[in-house]
């Protein structure tokens, strides 16, 4: 099969493997055809988040994607390319700290029930592969958007009974946060762990309203407004 990889220029490679994953194809090219092909990988079992990239413009984990003849492989979007398929995730990961994505523990940890556990079990499956970040169209207009994985992490902690200061987190995601999302759902479609950041952002909007915040996009006219265009 033939695939094309976006390096300094789009480069075609041919490999002969049976029903391989993309990571197997990349390893084959690197070790037998071109030692300079550059990409990241780790666990090869979809849990370490190292090998996210785009195939035919859609984000996948290379270790979890079965290659089709003619696939075009590109690095993730919205992040500076270091080389070939390796991007610099520092800024993206930095939004975690900006969004206070950790638990502020309570003096006495409350007991959790099975229902409590279900509330954020899925969100805690996140592997920080940045697929969602890459797919997000908001970065075209706002480079400071806190982004899907950080906001999912915020939801994970504010929905946790053990969190002592949920309001602090809600406060910090008002600006460049939940209201900047267009709810386009691209992040959900590409998440290898089946997490919907879009749904988490909607839930965070509900929580924000409970804390007395309102949608700044609707606030210009004041009063009741169900989304008519503002001029």
């Amino acid at each position, binding site marked *: 099969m033939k695939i094309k990889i976006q390096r300094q220029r789009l480069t075609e490679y041919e490999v002969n493997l049976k029903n391989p994953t993309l990571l197997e194809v990349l390893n084959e090219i690197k070790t037998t055809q071109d030692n300079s092909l550059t990409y990241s990988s780790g666990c090869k*079992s979809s849990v370490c*988040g190292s090998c996210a990239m785009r195939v035919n413009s859609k984000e996948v984990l290379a270790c979890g994607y079965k290659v089709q003849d003619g696939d075009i492989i590109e690095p993730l979007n919205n992040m500076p390319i270091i080389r070939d398929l390796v991007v610099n995730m520092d800024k993206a990961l930095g939004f975690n700290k900006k969004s206070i994505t950790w638990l502020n523990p309570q003096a006495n940890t409350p007991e959790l029930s099975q229902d409590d556990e279900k509330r954020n079990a899925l969100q805690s499956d996140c592997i920080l592969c940045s697929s969602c970040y890459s797919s997000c169209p908001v970065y075209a207009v706002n480079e400071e958007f806190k982004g899907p994985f950080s906001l999912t992490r915020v939801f994970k902690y504010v929905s946790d009974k053990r969190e002592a200061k949920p309001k602090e987190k809600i406060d910090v995601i008002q600006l460049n946060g939940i209201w900047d999302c267009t709810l386009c759902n691209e992040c959900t479609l590409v998440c290898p762990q089946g997490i919907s950041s879009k749904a988490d952002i909607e839930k965070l909007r509900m929580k924000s309203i409970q804390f007395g915040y309102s949608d700044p996009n609707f606030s210009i006219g004041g009063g009741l407004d169900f989304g008519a265009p503002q001029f």
Partner: protein
Amino acid sequence: MKRDILVIGAGGAGLVAALNAHEKGMKVTIITKDYPTRSQTSMAQGGINAALGNAGEDSVQSHIENTLKSAQGIASEDAINYLCSSAPQAVEWLNSIGVQFSRTKENKIAQRTLGGASAPRACYAQDYTGLKILHTLYDRVLASEIEILSDRYLLDLINSQDKKSVCGVSVLNKRTGEVEVYESRVVILATGGYARVYDKHSTNAVGTTGDGQAAAIRAGARLSDMEFVQFHPTALKSSSILISESARGAGGYLLNSKNERFVDELLPRDKVARAIDAQIKKGEDIFLDIRHLGEEFIDKELPQERKLALLYEGIDPVNELIPIKPVAHYTMGGIEVDEDSQTIIKGLFAVGECANHRVHGANRLGGNSLLELVVFGAQAGENAAEYAKEILNQVQDDEHEIQDDEHEIQDDEGKVQDDEGEVQDKIIQNCHSELDSESNIEIDFYKIKAELGDLFYKNVGIIRDKNSLESALKKVQKFISDIPLMGVNDRSKIYNTNLIEFLEFKNMLELSELILSGAIVREESRGAHFRSDFPQEDEKFKMHTIKDKNGVVS
């Protein structure tokens, strides 16, 4: 910038050590070869042991006894006592910082039985226990002022002139290709295991290449029990991807081609792996059967196992058998440390899979490695902080003395700088010579790396003997002597993974020789080290194999 403590490695052990040292007021920097959540810890599935008794009667004493038994006589009873008695507190701490453990109907942390355990003792978070612990630890690090330096590959430790204490590390910045030197009188190695010596015959992530152990022994530290490598009974047959022991803990069976069970599935891993190996040698194919557990249970408790089996083996365990084989999974051996997690090099600490705390002995129990990294991570972080404080006081005292004689200061500083300059030049030369040398590559190291893995799986695997080990040693020595004929084709300085993989490969070759020499000398069978020519345990070998770069210490 002045740093009190450097932590090399950002897996569970490194993060816990960093957090604890930071809590003691230290300025801590974590250096990792990837990003902090990429580590092997994310792959731990089954659970973390603590005798909480939430799912059936249990006691710390039973946990100690089970661990001791599985260690087969070569473990420290004190270290195991400390590990097991600290376990409930360790899990409570993880719970307090937000780990999403699964829960019982009584609102307790859920627990299940893993191999070799007399009670349901492994606290779990579905089958993503390691992932959820790792990410919660990472989030705690974000809450602190700990500095994280990503994409930096450990080259070497830098010693003081008298070689007795550590004074920093050299790393290759993957993004720039530059060698960087970080100074610190306290370094904690938390770089993981070396099971990738087995290459594709390992469940481990590709970066589990023993960089820390190799750097440590080059710097004069000791390694111990390197011949003890654990084979996990159930990896997927075609990809070596791990299927958690919790599948058997929940009632999964092992079957051969005749649909017969042939072993108690919940024996310790060394015994189950040998039973499977014996079946395979008889020509049987081996399967894990969890069909009878039902779809609802599998989706609730073992969602990752179903996903992995579907994706990498093309079968759905809800209604099909899972083809499996045992592969290298965990390395019990590692950097020799004392009860404070310190090596014989002052200021050099080691923790996690890269260290040998003598708690696993000849065979680790499932659920004890996540426990080890929390308990000893905390202890190593605290001890490193204490040591750093002592050093800081000393330096302050020294500075007072020296102030009386300004000439002396200048001389001293000048000398240190010269030395450092020299060290740095040497390291840069070593590292960049791979990039600068004339293209004269006669042997493809990727081929040798694969060959090394096949050789180890066959000759240094579940069953070994004198012949298999000695012929493997000869081959490894040949590979080592051929290193000058190998090299990297990629000459770029920017993110040169060809170079990194070559450096990793050279580390593994260095360790391969040590694994083999340990296995050859140990003419007995104990835990994961099984010699068909010496199938019995021998009292005379009830000891640790300890080595430094000059050979056998004891």
